[in-house]
């Protein structure tokens, strides 16, 4: 199925191409275009990658290479809200793995899995180490989490979904 960007996304891409015109091409816009495609189509299917390639005059293989290098781009459908729970050193020292386990139990998901509402990700440091353990959900941070706070966080996010595409 051939996909198309919305008029709004096309405007954004054109404006960005201007900002990177000094490069002599459109290649630097590929990351922003992939963020936009993920926002519009939910995930980066082969068709979405082909659309980005066509829009920026790039080979499909190049776009595929970029999309598969960075962890925030997803090739498979995911939940509306992505919860990124850190377990790196500062979080681990303050019960980060127990917090991750509490999210797994509350959501009924293993890390890396998704359902309609949620994707649960074990994250590698979200730069909030002084408030460990922590999680980032779109523009929202959850700081100084303890396992007993997890049910409330999940209930809150179910009520008010917080998709990452909000800032794209």
């Amino acid at each position: 199925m051939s996909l198309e960007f919305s008029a709004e996304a096309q405007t954004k891409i054109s404006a960005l191409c201007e900002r990177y015109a000094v490069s002599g091409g459109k290649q630097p816009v590929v990351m922003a275009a992939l963020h936009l495609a993920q926002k519009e189509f939910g995930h980066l299917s082969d068709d979405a990658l082909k659309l980005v390639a066509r829009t920026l005059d790039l080979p499909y293989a190049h776009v595929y290479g970029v999309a598969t290098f960075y962890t925030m781009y997803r090739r498979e459908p995911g939940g509306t809200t992505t919860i990124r729970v850190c377990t790196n050193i500062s979080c681990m020292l303050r019960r980060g793995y127990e917090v991750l386990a509490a999210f797994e139990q509350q959501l009924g998901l293993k890390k890396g899995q998704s359902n309609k509402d949620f994707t649960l990700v074990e994250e590698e440091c979200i730069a909030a180490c002084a408030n460990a353990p922590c999680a980032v959900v779109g523009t929202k941070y959850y700081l100084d989490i303890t396992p007993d706070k997890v049910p409330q966080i999940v209930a809150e996010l179910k009520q008010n979904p917080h998709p990452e595409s909000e800032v794209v």
Partner: protein
Amino acid sequence: MPTPIDTKLVTQRFGDEQGKTLAGYERTGGYGALRKALAMRPEDITAEVKASNLRGRGGAGFATGVKWGFVPKDAKVVHLVCNADESEPGTCKDRELIYWDPHLLIEGMIIAAHALRAVHNYIYIRGEMMREYAVLQRAVDEAYQRGYLGKNILGTGIECHLTVHRGAGAYICGEETALLNSLEGLRGQPRLKPPFPAVKGLFGNPTIVNNVETLMNVPLILDKGGAWFNGLGMGRSGGTRMICVSGHVNKPGVFELPMGITFNQIIHDVCGGLAAGRTVKAVIPGGVSMPPLDASELDVPCEFDALQTDERIKPVMVREGQQFDLGGGRALRTMAGSGGVVVMDDQTDIPRAVWRIMKFFAHESCGQCTPCREGTGWLEKVSRRVAEGNGKPDDLELLASIAHGIAGNTICALGDAAAWPMLGFLTKFRADFEAKIAKKVKAA
């Protein structure tokens, strides 16, 4: 005279919700330094920054003014890039700095861009920092509207553009050449140096890459003078330092502190010590890439040169009787890195903590160089079995040999970043690893 502990330069607007708006920023003197700088010759700005002894706050601690001086004089197109890809575990300062004072970063970038005669400039912000991206993009839009950015800034005839570029999840993009590749729309894999970015960087043009905190100090230097800034610091390191303290202290936090403060002062005076009955076992001084300190090494100042040369810090060993050689026989003690101080108390399972650090590097290796791609995977596997109590008698020798085989043999510093803490922990906490292995051998 040492800097008072409450000197606030880059954190002066922390806690002030108005400070992040253009109106709030201007009300507290914002963009005053830019007006002053635009009336100066570019080389005079660089001279002032050189005199300040401002050193890069991203990790390497290189002298900022000297770096700016590496751009060839006859360069036609130059770029300034801000590295806002903060992702070194233990480090959480740039995220706070951007959130509370985005215009200070923008002002610092416009001044630096003028010094470098750079027109098209970029901020590379980490993909996961979605809140900070929103704050920063709004501030950049405000600066364009008010004429601080654009084709003719403040009517001076100078053109300066700033574009915020979002990453999408990759620690390696904090390495400056990987960051440039990512900005160019490539996979974020590092480039061989030389040529250094100051000679051949973004789109093949001379490019200066500076950290967020580094650039945010520039308006203050222009405002009060390089000599003043240098006077606040210690030795060859001017100004204050953002220190992020995490782990087993009573009051973790992000603090702007005097350059010469010691680790004991940070832990006990700033962060309220440890829980009752606990003592310090290990301290990571500047992000997980840096070899650790043990409890006897904490009276050393948290300053760039001191951490590399102070003889109270034991050298990292490859094995008994063989020091790790940084080149020319120089010992590796540790480095100030990114300001991420991670404190571990006496109850910490050191082999498990080390496994977690190795897991991180194995996950983040970009895969370009074999020693790093394969080596970090092996460091993770072997350190995991040791941590889980399944270690073999030769595993510590094996870990040291893998780490030594990675260090110095890769395009970028990620390989060293995995090898150094591995060797550092083995040097200073060997008994903790041996105890885990001995238990297993006994059980068998």
